[in-house]
């Protein structure tokens, strides 16, 4: 009877120990993953990322017709025309002020 209780007590203690180890194992795994990830990022950071479009391959992108804002005064004016007559605002990268909306 005492032996059976002792075996149960030992099992209970081991189960408790395993349960208390689980979070520690999880934390260790997380720490290892974070360290590995940081080292990978750091190593990638120390070696420059190779651009897949080289500077000498950007002649088309440098053409003025590819500019997002070829005529800033005109695009600011049209943005103002729309923003005072429609509810939507923002999301276009443009900046303006004032109302002019009566």
């Amino acid at each position, binding site marked *: 009877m005492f032996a059976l209780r002792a075996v149960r007590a030992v099992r209970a203690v081991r189960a408790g120990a395993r349960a208390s180890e689980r979070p520690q194992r999880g934390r260790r795994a997380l720490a290892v993953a974070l360290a590995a990830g940081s080292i990978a990022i750091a190593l990638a950071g120390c070696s*420059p990322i190779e651009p897949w479009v080289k500077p000498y391959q950007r002649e088309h992108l440098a053409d003025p017709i590819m500019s997002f804002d070829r005529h800033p005064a005109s695009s600011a*004016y049209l943005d103002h025309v729309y923003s005072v007559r429609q509810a939507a605002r923002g999301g276009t990268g443009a900046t303006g002020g*004032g109302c002019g909306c009566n």
Partner: protein
Amino acid sequence: MGDRARGGPRGCGRAWLILALCALYSTPTLTGVLPEDTAEVLVDHYSGDDQKVEGRTWLIRKKFADAFDVQYSRSTDVVSGASVAVRITGASPYIEQRTEDNVSMQYLRGKTTYTVGFIHSYEPDYTSNTTTYSISQDMFGDLTTVSMTYKREWDAIFKMIKECGVAQSPCPDSDFVKVHDPAFGRKQMDERSYGFGVTQILSRNAILAINYDLITDEGFISNPYRAARYLDPTVARGWSLEPEVYPGTRTSNAIGGDIKYYLPYRAALDLQYRYYQDTFSIHSHTVQLSYTQPWRHWTFDASARYYVQNQADFYSDLFPFAGSQNFVSGNQDLSAYHSYSFGLGATYQFGIPHVSWIERSTANIRYDRLMTDYQNFRYWLATDPAAGINPGEEPLFSLRANIYEFYLSLWF
């Protein structure tokens, strides 16, 4: 033991600092690029819905000390006539001038560009001051540019009323002057805007820009001249007006994407999309397709834009009775509608003889046609119970506007 315990974490901290610096230092430091020196003069004209707006803008942008760029622009709009919002409240046509000064400075350090700006806009009944701060960083071999912007705006709103400038009754038309309505006083509206943008080179021929803006307003965000209408059986036409009441705050989110593609025969195709939503329960979609075609000294532009939105949850074209809701609005801009616009532009590049400091110059002309069809905003003035047109049965309102621009651009 004590030294080891203190020294251990310190040593580890150094290692993490080095790793973190390596992670940040992802590209070799080269120099970014500031915009070209530019000067522009723009003349614009808007006409639609019995309203005309004549505008003038000039802009100059200049680099100095290799790392700085300063830009200044001044715009003046003269608004005349009476839009539908003015006509339905019974106000008379008016002439009003709006002036906007916009100054900004950029500082380039390595691949980082810092920008500060200030905008002042003045109308007799609306004054606005805006400060902007932004930072942008080129990275990954200049394939990617990330930018963040913060904007803070302070507005003061007044209401203008007509007052006779002489002690004479009846007052001669020439002696009416517009003054601030003391009963309305001075209202304030503050706005904060947080922006985040990424520009990404996708291939040798394609570039993508994504912009997100969170804008929040607080204060008087209504319009002192606009009104809501409600059914009123005590008057012959069957409806009356009540002042608009808006919530005290408004927060909006907008995300837009813009992809530009270089076609094989030297032309550019541009597709833009924007999704917008705000705390008024408005959702909207904007799609724009643009095409640019150079030909000898000319560059031609064509664009088509489509915009659609649903109504704000406190908007109605006709409320059942006065004070039927906490918040009421009859503003057509908050109704449900869709809008199309089509634009055509032409640019002619020319040289200016004997002026060697001007690298190139262009003369530009552009025309846009804006067509908006409102789905639940009716032309209130068409009510005529005698002819069988009762309140709520008037024809739906539509806006047709023409926008002309002529401008000169110089690069030096």
